[in-house]
């Protein structure tokens, strides 16, 4: 099986340096494309490849680029921003790419910037990813020395300067417009859309924000063509995907697999199944802000549209597994603590709704649940539904809660009627 993202990563976890990367075919796409193919054609190829954004929303990458104003009237400089603020709980896929194959991201950024004719690129990276920062810095330096970055790249007349911006660290910065505000030195609150960043983004100029993994797919597409990329997957959506599993499984980790691999294969084959004595109850398929999938969904193909059809979202594709020895109420309460803490405080439902949900769940956990608490939870799920809040943060936060109540509702109610958590045995 071809692995365009991780295929040439070294086994020892060390950084693939420029020499090694070039030896593996690195920067071949850059040489093929920059100055030789029209930028619009690069966008068209990516559109044809059906590459969907790997940050979680699954929006067509080529389509996103297609909204960037092109031609002489376009406002310049345009910006390309790599969203490397990987803060989604249970998600650790971009880190692997940046630590072990940083040149792949750089090459992807060169190609993507060329497609939208951006002359400045930023890698907005999670502050905790110290190793990624070190390695990216080294790689950028190498690429600049070699003429892949800077002025007049490969004598094509195309310029691109790449900068690393280390995030001070808030989950909110993963939202692309909040990221732009943070990058400008402002509070990391999201911006109203429209205007989309393509029209008015970083410093008010046309901007594309793409996830690291998304950008890393671009070199393969440009080297081997849209069809080849599409053929990598099991479904209509093109390419491979970094799947991951965390929780009480035998072999937690992250693996590059064809897009559309089933949950059963990911958990049972690659993660080695549940640890002895633990039974699978459910999993969040793509980080904390997705709906639970349960046993019935074991054979669901994990791509964006299929997971959507069974009521969840693929998200980041890194599964968080819930087992029978973990209290689902406590599990969700923990997530709500996270979301409540990370809310930016801009809009009412998120800022003041999540803490109410969190306190209610914590009370239930502590055996202090009351009649009416289920109503509180249910009404908040509805309250923070998509479109009701300023950005997708709170609707995302409600996804694990609403699905947990759907699949494990009995456990929730039992907390209230028994006045204790059966897993902790506390209460009166």
């Amino acid at each position, binding site marked *: 099986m071809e692995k365009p993202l991780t295929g040439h990563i070294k086994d020892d976890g060390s950084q693939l340096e420029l020499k090694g990367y070039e030896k593996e075919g690195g920067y071949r796409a850059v040489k093929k494309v920059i100055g030789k193919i029209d930028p619009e054609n690069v966008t068209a190829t990516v559109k044809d490849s059906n590459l969907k954004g790997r940050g979680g929303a699954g929006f067509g990458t080529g389509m996103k680029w297609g909204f960037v104003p092109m031609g002489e009237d376009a*406002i310049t400089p345009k910006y390309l921003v790599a969203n490397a603020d990987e803060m989604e709980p249970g998600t650790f896929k971009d880190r692997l790419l940046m630590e072990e194959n940083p040149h792949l991201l750089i090459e992807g950024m060169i190609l993507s910037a060329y497609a939208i004719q951006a002359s400045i690129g930023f890698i907005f990276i999670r502050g905790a990813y110290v190793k990624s920062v070190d390695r990216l810095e080294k790689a950028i330096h190498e690429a600049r020395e070699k003429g892949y970055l800077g002025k007049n790249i490969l004598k094509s007349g195309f310029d691109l300067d790449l900068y690393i911006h280390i995030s001070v660290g*808030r989950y*909110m910065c993963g939202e692309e417009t909040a990221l732009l505000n943070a990058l*400008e030195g402002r*509070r990391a609150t999201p*911006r*109203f859309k*429209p*205007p989309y960043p393509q*029209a*008015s983004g970083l*410093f*008010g100029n046309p901007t594309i924000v793409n996830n690291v993994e998304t950008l890393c797919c671009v070199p393969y597409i440009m080297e081997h063509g849209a069809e080849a990329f599409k053929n990598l997957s099991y479904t209509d959506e093109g390419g491979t995907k970094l799947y991951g599993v965390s929780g009480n499984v035998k072999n937690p980790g992250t693996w590059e697999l064809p897009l559309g691999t089933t949950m059963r294969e990911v958990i049972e084959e690659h993660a080695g199944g549940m640890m002895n004595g633990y039974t699978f109850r459910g999993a969040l398929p793509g980080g904390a802000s997705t709906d639970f999938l349960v046993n019935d969904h074991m054979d669901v193909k994990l791509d964006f549209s299929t997971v959507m059809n069974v009521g969840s979202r693929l998200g980041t594709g890194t599964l968080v597994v819930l087992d029978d020895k973990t209290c689902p109420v406590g599990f969700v309460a923990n997530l709500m603590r996270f979301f*409540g*803490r*990370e*809310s*930016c*405080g*801009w*809009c*009412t*439902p998120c*800022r*003041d*709704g*999540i*803490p*109410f949900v969190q*306190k209610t769940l914590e*009370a239930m956990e502590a055996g202090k649940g*009351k009649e*009416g608490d289920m*109503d*509180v939870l249910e*009404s908040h799920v509805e*309250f923070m539904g998509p*479109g*009701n*809040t*300023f950005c997708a943060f709170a609707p995302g936060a409600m996804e694990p809660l609403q699905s947990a109540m759907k699949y494990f509702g009995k456990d929730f109610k039992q907390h209230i009627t028994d006045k204790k958590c059966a897993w902790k045995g506390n209460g009166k």
Partner: protein
Amino acid sequence: MVNIYIDGIKYQAEEGKNLLDYCLSVGLDIPYFCFHPAMGSVGACRLCAVKMYKDENDTRGKIIMSCVQPVQDGMIISIEDPEVKHFRAQVIESLMNNHPHDCPICDEGGECHLQDMTVMTGHVYRRNRFKKRTYRNQYLGPFINHEMNRCIQCYRCTRFYREYAGGYDLDVFGIHSRVFFGRHQDGMLENEFSGNLVEVCPTGVFTDKTLKKHYTRKWDLSTAPSICEHCSLGCNTIPGERYGKLRRIRNRYNYDVNGYFLCDRGRFGYEYVNRETRIKKIKARFGAELQDTTEDEILDKITNAFEKGKTLGIGSARASVEANYALNKLVGAENFYAGISGKDHQILRNYLDILRNYPVNVPSMKETEEADYVLVLGEDITHSAPRLALSLRQTLMKKAMDEAARVSIPRWLDHAVREFYQDGKAPMTTITPYNTKLDDVASKSLRLNPHDTVKFGFLLANRINNDAPAVKDYPGEWDEWLDQLAKALINAKKPLIVSGWGNGLEEMLKAAANITQALNGEERKAGLFYALPEANSMGLGLLEGNDLSGIMETGDAPENLIILENDLYRHFDKVQADKFFNQFKNILLIDHTETNTTDHASFVLPSGVTAESSGTFINTEGRAQRFYKAYIPEAPVMDSWRWLGRIENHLKKTGGQWNSLDECLAELVKGYTVFKPLTELAPPSGFRINGEKVARAPHRYTGRTSMHAHKNVHEQKPPQDEDAPMSFTMEGYNGTPPSSLVSHYWKPGWNSVQALNKYQQEVGGPMHDGDPGKRVIEPTDNPKQQYFKVPVFETKTEAGELYLTPVPHIFGSGEMSSLSAAIREATPEPYVLIHPNVAGQNDLNEDDVAIVRANGKEWKLKVKTDDKMADDVAGITTGFRQSYIVELPLKGNIEKQEKK
């Protein structure tokens, strides 16, 4: 116009307009918090949710926020849909998770937008059993009280303070459910418009600290439409009184003038009214002492004294047109003097000449916001005409909105506009001797001494248009600036030149006028906005009083003198004024507050302050605006024009002099046709709606009896007002009266200031029947440019000599406001502002005491430095009580005071 459907009813709306704004404008009630008509939409609070349907077959619909939704052709909306109503109630529930239940002890109670919205959404039952979050409050200075626990995080405060008003020291800190709105540390809010937070905040986080000292609920206040008396802009205000004490000043919306906002001097400068030093009794001099006497007695005394000999009358720029006219009539026009310095008199005369005879466009304050290039010539506007600075600042946002339209961002989508325009500047150049606050939005700021500024102005006029007189001899480096600025102004469709009294130079006005003349052409009339010093400088000017400085010099004075609301020591040098007063046998003073002039009076009559009087002020653009008494002051205090009418009756034994404002105005118009519009400013006192007068107080459910229940439970007969069609109680018409009679904003369900929406033609637009006030002087249609001749410019200063230029200060320079406690707390010590180089040459450091010498006199002032100011200038705080230097600008020297 397109058709839209709201709950099944067809409406015609302007496409692209903000849906919330539209719905509120047609009278529909959608609750909201973060939207503000002057500041647009940001979509934060989520309260203005409505349902939108794809088409008539869509029965589910989706929840959208009306404040960020443009009106579209054929759109189908529901405000009343049960699901969206429930959603809005849940927004309130969420805010109530943490909002304290302290309404009974909250200063906002009774006029709280949060209370109104809570009731409007129907949220009643608290489900949340957990603890509320609490904060530590901050000391924010003498104006604003801070109570963060009440915060509902609508972000209006920081949006107003930082984005609208350009402040830096109020911000949002922290995240999630613990965001905090305050300063980085305790301290006075630095922005000059901080008082607006009181009205911008939808609940009781930021409240009026001066009101707190003598707190009264909205429904207990007697209020009236009034005009701010603290500068010449004529901002519309609502003073509120209870038990004879003035409690607070609120903004009164006037689309053309102040819109939604006041400056802090205007809002907090009222406290002098309640001071002990108010003149409240009739007094006559017995030897060295002024002693109380009665009205009958003093009128006889005055008659005896003033019957013989000629009487000279001195008017006042802080007294109403009516009062000045009454004096003018009493003493005769030939004996009526304007009571301002010779320099001010000359400026006023020139300004009137420009307005009457030059083809110049004098914009309203609202129109200044629309200017597409502004030149501020030699004036620190923020301190000489503060509210105007806030308007000029909005030229930045107008430019940003125009730019953002390139990527189809609606003008009302506030943050999107700002995010697009980023740190872009306003189309503005400031030329001042020292750093001014408007410099942070100006595209360019030049530092020149005032005399060079005048020269630069004349040069610029000539650079724009060759017909303007030329100037020789100027520094070569000016050429580039002149070319740039000339080009920017020529390219502008609505260029505006701004200056004012603060620089004290008659030639500055002439230079500004010449620039406007040079810019005028077929297709465009350049704007000139010149800020005069006092609330009624313009009204005084139109009465054509004589120049007092003429007889000050000659000493050729008659026997008797009547002074109307004027302290001559603010206009003339002390020695000169002393000498002047000593010439008179009898001096009658009519004023409301003791000043240095009071000491010379033989007779004193107590007049009402603006909030206790009725009359008219004419603002600097020539707009006549009526004010009415908010309450009847305790006798014998009354309107100056009423006193003067009574004196005339007594003195001339004619009888039949006016008894009411309408009668006074009728007389006035006979004598001066220019004042004709004054009779049309508001309905006459006989005006009634449904047979009722307009109520000065909002309806109060306990009735007015309980107002005085602590003294007497019998219902007192309320006092009558002969001058206005308004009652002094809650009884009367409480609907929407003519806008000239609006004294409070209240509509069913809307107890806060946001009820204003219902008084406007459309939200943020003019008042329902047009805005009160009428221009008495309109620019001439004569298209022929006229130019002032180039003056003789000051020669270079001698070594060590500096241009001593006045530095006006919002807190300190105002005559009456500087007596108010909160303003005094915010007032700096008088200072001299110099360049560090000048300080260095004179061995001076910041905060040292320097001796400033000029005209054979000396003043001791604290040193302040500004490394960006012109280095041939020393700025001296002007109008301060402690060190009044009336002669500025001057040339002089500075040196260190040697320690004893």
